[in-house]
């Protein structure tokens, strides 16, 4: 019976074709249409194109000369770096720690994963309150610790120099912290699953050979976790390129002073607010190209080992 299933492949097609058609209609066709849109002149979503751009590659030229696009790319690259270092890094440390404890592991898994299930909009509003200029949680804390300068006027009025967490000196920290915080749990769960797949016998054998905790992590856990880590890195890089909702809720259109753009927020602003659909499409193409290139680079650097 089993051999019949493997010999007759046609039923498999029956199940694969609908999903394939779905992807063609809702992913590949829009994607190629989006590429066509980059050379057209389109003044609003749903509006017909008013002919081709003059020259047709005008939007691609603009990508290289647009100062806000440079800002968006720079910020996105920093975000990718932070994502790899902090999101995956912290997730790895937490996963290693949770893997070593016997009691409460499930509790910590739930706790660290929890931010993922909260909507990014709600998180954005929450962090807006945390970093609020006047009376925000962080600023109140700093004031109570005496870290914010203040002045008492002759009238007795207290003038506090609140810290603006969204100004040019602090906005990257304020923007990236919630993003890091939200997704640590996602990579944590993937890494914990990877850790669970490592046979305990390997650790027992290493312990008998006299290997301490650090050596077991260095020579058994990390090498065997390499494939999972590689997957996490690719997900983190492509995910960072698409980050939109949380920064948009907190910073809107490029705050502060057009220095806060990300590729995702800039694409949205051009398409939906500025009605510059063709240029927004061009940015979308760039995001896809960057995603493919960067994930390939990550794959080559952290190439999954076939020995594992």
């Amino acid at each position: 019976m089993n051999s019949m299933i493997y010999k007759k492949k046609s039923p498999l097609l029956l199940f694969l074709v609908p999903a394939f058609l779905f992807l063609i209609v809702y992913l590949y066709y829009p994607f190629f249409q989006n590429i066509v849109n980059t050379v057209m002149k389109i003044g609003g979503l749903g509006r017909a194109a008013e002919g081709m751009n003059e020259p047709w590659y005008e939007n691609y030229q603009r990508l290289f000369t647009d100062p806000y696009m440079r800002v968006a790319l720079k910020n996105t690259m920093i975000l990718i770096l932070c994502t790899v270092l902090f999101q995956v890094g912290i997730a790895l440390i937490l996963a290693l720690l949770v893997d070593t404890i016997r009691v409460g592991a499930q509790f910590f898994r739930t706790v660290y994963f929890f931010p993922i299930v909260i909507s990014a909009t709600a998180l954005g509003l929450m962090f807006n309150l945390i970093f609020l200029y006047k009376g925000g949680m962080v600023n109140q804390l700093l004031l109570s610790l005496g870290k914010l300068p203040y002045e008492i006027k002759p009238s007795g009025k207290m003038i506090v120099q609140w810290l603006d967490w969204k100004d040019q000196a602090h906005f990257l920290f304020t923007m990236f912290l919630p993003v890091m915080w939200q997704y640590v749990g996602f990579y944590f769960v993937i890494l914990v699953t990877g850790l669970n797949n490592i046979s305990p016998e390997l650790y027992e054998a290493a312990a008998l050979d006299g290997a301490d905790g650090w050596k077991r992590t260095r020579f058994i856990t990390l090498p065997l976790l390499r494939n999972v880590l590689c997957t996490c890195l690719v997900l983190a890089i492509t995910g960072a390129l698409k980050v939109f909702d949380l920064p948009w809720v907190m910073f809107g259109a490029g705050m502060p002073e057009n220095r806060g753009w990300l590729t995702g927020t800039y694409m949205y602003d051009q398409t939906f607010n500025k009605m510059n659909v063709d240029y927004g499409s061009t940015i979308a193409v760039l995001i896809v190209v960057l995603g493919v290139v960067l994930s390939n680079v990550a794959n080559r650097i952290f190439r999954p080992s076939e020995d594992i």
Partner: protein
Amino acid sequence: MKKALALLLVLVMVLSFGSIAAFADGVTLNVVTSYGGDDGNRGNFEAAVKAYEEATGNKVNDGSATSNEEWKAKVLTDFETGSEPDVLFYFTNADAEPFISAGKVVSIEEIRAEYPDYATNMKSSMMAVAADGKQYSVPSSGYWENMFVNKAVLADCGVEVPGPDYTWDQFLADCETIKEAGYTPIACSLVEVPHYWFEFMVMNNGTVANHLELPQSPDDEVAAKWAAGLNDIKALYEAGYFPANTLTASDAETVELFNAGEAAFLIDGSWKVGYFTANAADLNDFAISYVPGKGDRSASEAIGGISMGYFITRKAWDDPAKREAAVEFVSQLTSDEVLSTFVTTEVTALVNGASPAGLNPLQQSAADANANITAIVGAVQDSLSAEARGDLFANVQNVVTGKMSAEDAVASALALN
């Protein structure tokens, strides 16, 4: 056992059909308005919708939101992608032209052919006329924009509440006094809502009579007037009269600064009266005053008019099930009785006029200020395309920080208009 189970299933099916039939009795209308968020008339709108639902048995899917450039863009996008609502409460100026010219809304004339009494309680002369010469929207209440003042802050600083003869020089001196006393003179988020100040500063560099003129080129007199207005905002920014975080704060944050007694002046519209009525600790601390006049403009000249109205979309009109429900909804929301609950001091197009109930101290203050208004004119920004307006206001932060000249900001917007 099997029989009992079968009976139970049949019962569930019958009840299900019953409930579907119950839903089928009424029509569900998709309605989008700007009565969302902290709009002062949110409560009145909800009450009016509830009354409509109870009277007709219809349901209303309320997709209302706060009006801003993003909301306007979303409404236009909905029309372009075929997901427009059945009834829309929206701006009646150039903002509405894209969906009017696309034939996506129904004219009053066409509606009256079937419902002769539709909007007959409105003065025809005050109903907006589209570029094709037809009327499409039933006007709701009008609006005014003027200066809100925090009297408690002014008193603490020894500054008098400005009168209708308030001058620009007096204003600058008052701002300096207020700043010295440790308060923020002007509550405004220049990154989110610079348009109130833009409108009055442009008028301060021109007159009421020529306020609605649009620049024809970046070098003409009107463009110079607009640039001068932007430079006036820059001067206030450089003097430190706006909140320290005006380039990163939201409108809600700066309004709260004013409400909490930390700022003295706020230019806003009639819709904000409702916000303070609901949120102010003591309404007697606030008053409606006058935006300081400069040059040929007197402080008693303000911005105002009727800028929004109810549209019935072609999609709802062509749906036999929704046509009557939509007409009934607009008729009820714009009836003399319901509109009177939305109005305190604003103008209306009602033939019989509105009859608002007892005014609170802030509403009374607005009524007193309006009594001294010598001229009122619409907002010139309403004549700009959404793209041009968005560009102009996004560049205000670049102008005040010196990254762009005011002249270049005006030229950039005109290139998109």
